[in-house]
């Protein structure tokens, strides 16, 4: 029992039994994993990004492996927010873990509407994915344009009554700290960083991109040093808590993200390689904290020595 306490953290008023969240897009809607791991043991689950209407996603191929990385362009395929709330969430709520609803839209109105529905539902937190283009504004991405990010964050925050709002930042910007600051100023309760990095791979036999969508997002260990640097930059410039992610494969990676300022972390691509990874990391973190006689993992947040 005492042991377990070492991993407890509180994020925006929500208690987590441990700071390991399964990242959006890498654990389906959670239920897909129930035959493989005990979902009650993970700190939280961020479900596949939800939109107002169901979305079929991109054509195939959608994934390709690179050196220590994975490019994906799933195209945000999802069942739609209503189907999720009505047909998936009730089963998901049976597990004792924090449910985070990752969501997106093609216009501010869509973001707002999805957020309103989720806020009224049984989920615990909202995570806004701003990596998609604003169709109404000619395709300018919400996540790589400061003004758009402020607008969408302000608008969503205004409509939400009950649940904390996490804004998940895109790494495809020059200075991610200014985007974090803008999100904070526009009402975000928490930042998660990073999403995938725009990337590309070419099939030298066919001369075609290896992803039908031409470009995709790079995740996995390859991007970890970039993600750690970005979390560090964000931590120095905002006061709201940070969920760090990008290439975490083991407990040592988790510690790196804590030291540069994460309060909680997410595990993405690592779930594909072995769905036990999250649970193994939780065990290893416990051992580490015991070994070092650290009372609570939060003591490590931001404790980099520079």
């Amino acid at each position, binding site marked *: 029992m005492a042991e377990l306490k070492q991993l407890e953290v509180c994020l925006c008023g929500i208690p987590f039994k441990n700071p390991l969240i399964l990242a959006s897009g890498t654990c389906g809607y959670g239920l897909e994993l129930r035959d493989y791991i005990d979902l009650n043991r993970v700190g939280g689950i961020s479900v596949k990004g939800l939109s107002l209407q169901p979305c079929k996603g991109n054509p195939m191929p959608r994934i390709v492996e690179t050196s220590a*990385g994975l490019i994906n362009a799933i195209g945000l395929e999802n069942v739609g927010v209503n189907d999720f709330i009505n047909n998936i969430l009730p089963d998901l709520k049976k597990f004792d873990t924090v449910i985070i609803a990752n969501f997106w839209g093609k216009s501010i109105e869509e973001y707002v509407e999805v957020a309103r529905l989720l806020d009224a539902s049984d989920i615990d937190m909202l995570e806004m994915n701003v990596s998609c283009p604003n169709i109404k504004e000619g395709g300018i991405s919400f996540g790589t344009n400061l003004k758009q990010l402020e607008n969408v964050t302000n608008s969503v925050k205004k409509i939400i009554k009950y649940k904390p709002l996490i804004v998940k930042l895109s790494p495809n910007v020059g200075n991610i700290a200014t985007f974090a600051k803008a999100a904070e100023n526009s009402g975000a309760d928490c930042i998660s960083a990073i999403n995938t990095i725009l990337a590309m791979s070419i099939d030298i036999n066919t001369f075609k991109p290896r992803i039908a969508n031409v470009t995709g997002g790079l995740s996995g260990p390859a991007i970890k040093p970039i993600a750690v640097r970005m979390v560090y930059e964000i931590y120095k410039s905002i006061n709201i808590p940070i969920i760090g992610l990008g290439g975490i494969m083991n407990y040592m990676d988790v510690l790196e993200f804590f030291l540069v300022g994460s309060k909680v972390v997410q595990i993405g691509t690592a779930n594909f390689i072995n769905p036990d990874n999250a649970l193994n990391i939780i065990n290893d973190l416990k051992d580490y904290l015991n070994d070092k006689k650290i009372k609570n993992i939060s003591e490590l947040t931001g404790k980099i020595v520079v």
Partner: protein
Amino acid sequence: MAKSKIIYNKKINDNYFTMSISASSETLKAKPGNFIMLKTNKNNLVYDPLLRRSFAVSDIEEDNIVITYKVIGKGTLGLTYLRENDIIETSGLLGNYFNCSLNNKRIAIIAGGIGIAPFPLLVKRLTKKNNFIDLYYGGKSKNDIVLLDKFKEVDNIFITTEDGSKGKKGLITDYINREYEIAFVCGPNPMMMHSIYKLNETCEIEVSMEERMACGIGLCMGCIVNLREETMKNKKCCKDGPIFNGRKVVWQNLNN
């Protein structure tokens, strides 16, 4: 994910290998068409290759399952370095399987290259039930024709190679001109498409699809197959497949 011991890892020829690994009693229940995923190296601190690789259960030998693999890239190259008694991580059984509760049927098995992999086990389950089985097996060259000793019980074997170095010269699909009640097909997408076109309309067709997979268990949505008549719902090759009704697959959506 389980740790399995390698019983043997034998070279068939420069590009093809066969590996036997110890299996749990669950895994030994593998049905033909099921697949497993393997970590292709032993070093737990390195992440290249990153993802596990998928392989059909090719055969079952005592308490071990056998895979047959072709060296394609870094992952399968990594497999070739593994030796007897090495421990590797495996996951599975994964996916669905071929319909093998058949009696008194006229059956075609159509394989292209490494597409032969799942069929030794299938043939084991189908023979001695009064089934009539023709094996069609095509490759680029003679090195692509392997495992023939596993098909001694089938009724006829048709072999083609593109360069004529073994069997008839040409594409295997050119030689399909008998009628069957059911056909099992595994190989490159164009070859599978073409087989469907060549088979008689009354023949049921089960194809085993190879899509790139990140997770193998339905988490990533990377391995989508579209079926006709179910246009609004994507199927996952890893969970809903890899075996699909060949006549329903929307081949155009698989541009790889």
